[in-house]
């Protein structure tokens, strides 16, 4: 399944016209200890670049933007009890929400894994 990345450090893994979204391992390492995740509600409509979720760390609250437009189908309920999953497994069990895509053409604006790695290496 293809996985794409944004310059704002989100990842999105696409399967057909649905996708899973999270923040990257780099992002969690920069945020530090995550204490709470505000998840979008199922059914919420999000536009590309909209703030869809907020990740609270000991440091600060940070927005997570929708990498593409679509409709949220599910938030990761496991994070309600264990927000630290985003620290321990940001690109796996620490996913934030699932969504349907309204325009898969928007994926063309995102980076693949190699491009994202190169992007992070420049930071």
């Amino acid at each position, binding site marked *: 399944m293809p996985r794409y990345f944004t*310059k*704002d*450090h*989100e990842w999105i893994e696409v399967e057909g016209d649905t996708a899973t979204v999270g*923040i990257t391992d780099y*992002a969690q390492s*920069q*945020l*530090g*200890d995550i*204490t*709470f995740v*505000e998840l979008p509600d199922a059914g919420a409509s999000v536009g590309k670049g909209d*703030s869809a979720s*907020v*990740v*609270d*760390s*000991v*440091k*600060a*609250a*940070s*927005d*997570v*933007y929708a990498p593409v437009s679509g409709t949220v189908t599910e938030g990761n309920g496991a994070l309600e009890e264990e*927000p630290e999953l985003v620290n321990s497994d940001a690109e796996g069990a620490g996913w934030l929400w699932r969504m349907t895509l309204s325009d898969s053409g928007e994926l063309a604006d995102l980076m693949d894994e190699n491009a994202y790695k190169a992007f992070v290496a420049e*930071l």
Partner: protein
Amino acid sequence: MVPQLRAESWLVSDLNDIPADEFEDSDVPAGPLLLPLDAWHRAKGGRMVDFAGYSMPVQYEGIMAEHLWTRTHAGLFDVSHMGQLYISGEGVEAALEAVLPIDLSTLPLGGVRYSLLLDETGGILDDLMVTRWATGFYLVVNGATKWDDIAHLREHLPDAVTINHLDESALLALQGPQVAEALAPLVEGEQPLSALSFMRGAAFKLGGVDAWISRSGYTGEDGFEISIPAESAAAVADLIAAQPQVRPIGLGARDSLRLEAGLPLYGHDMTAEMEPVEAGLAFGINKRRRTEGGFPGAERVIEALMEGPSRRRVGLAIEGRMAAREGAQVLVGETPVGIVTSGGFSPSLERPIAMAYVEAPHSAEGTRLFIDVRGRKLAATIVPMPFVPHRYHRKGAA
């Protein structure tokens, strides 16, 4: 994600993909100043951010771990960005009493006292520590305000009084329940380190270096603050950090520790818009000065002492796990009654806590309120501060 900072932008500016130089304070044209321990912090893995005009470590291994280590062992903080001043000269005692609401007649040699720099209307310009030395007074002021403080003091102190900015001194803080056992083997002095009780200081040799050590700090724990020559700072930091009880601690945990201890942060929980009584800092107005006055803003401060302030700084325990941060509105029903001035997740209590200014009629302990965080109304209760009990080494205590 991340870049759109809601508060505390100094903590996360390193994440922003905008070049760092766009964030620099316009007062610091040449970029952040480097601390004497700059290379030491980087070698220890410190993540550096701009704060108070300096490049400073926000964390090493992580804020949560550093916070909890300090509460159980001993944490070493570099606070060399703070201003260290030595005030001396003929008539210095009366001159300082004219600018501070302090009673120096009751401050013994080596005694340390909390005080406040106030403007003519009683607004808080800074908070500071005043220590009596043999021939003058040693002041420690906040880093972000030190240049303004020095200008203010120069303007208001008479010419016979000299202000020395001890800008070739570093300042370390060692905080936590194991500080005494960590530091005692390293120091020599006319008296043992154990003779220092809370808010007392004395001169020692620390690894052969002249050090002024006071038993004080900003975490609520037992602790020492250690002033040493900047050129010896790395050697002294190495010596202290080599003790098994000690780990280096960054600004992030310094903030969460002081919040749990109920200690206000200048520029957030107290500003020139606030007077000491509403800020909960009436103890900084010494008894004799409450009747005699004669300090800047005395009229308004004494009135607030007599009449009670119209709002008060309170502690809030918040339900759930979502933190409320600076700027969030405090509500009774739908009616705004106050504003959060600092807040975050408490690592010790494992819940969000905050400080807020709340209108006096709604400021009693036990009052249930709501905090508006991004449109969500979080339930909160006013609780006494400190949130986590202080464990100072008070005189007469074991």
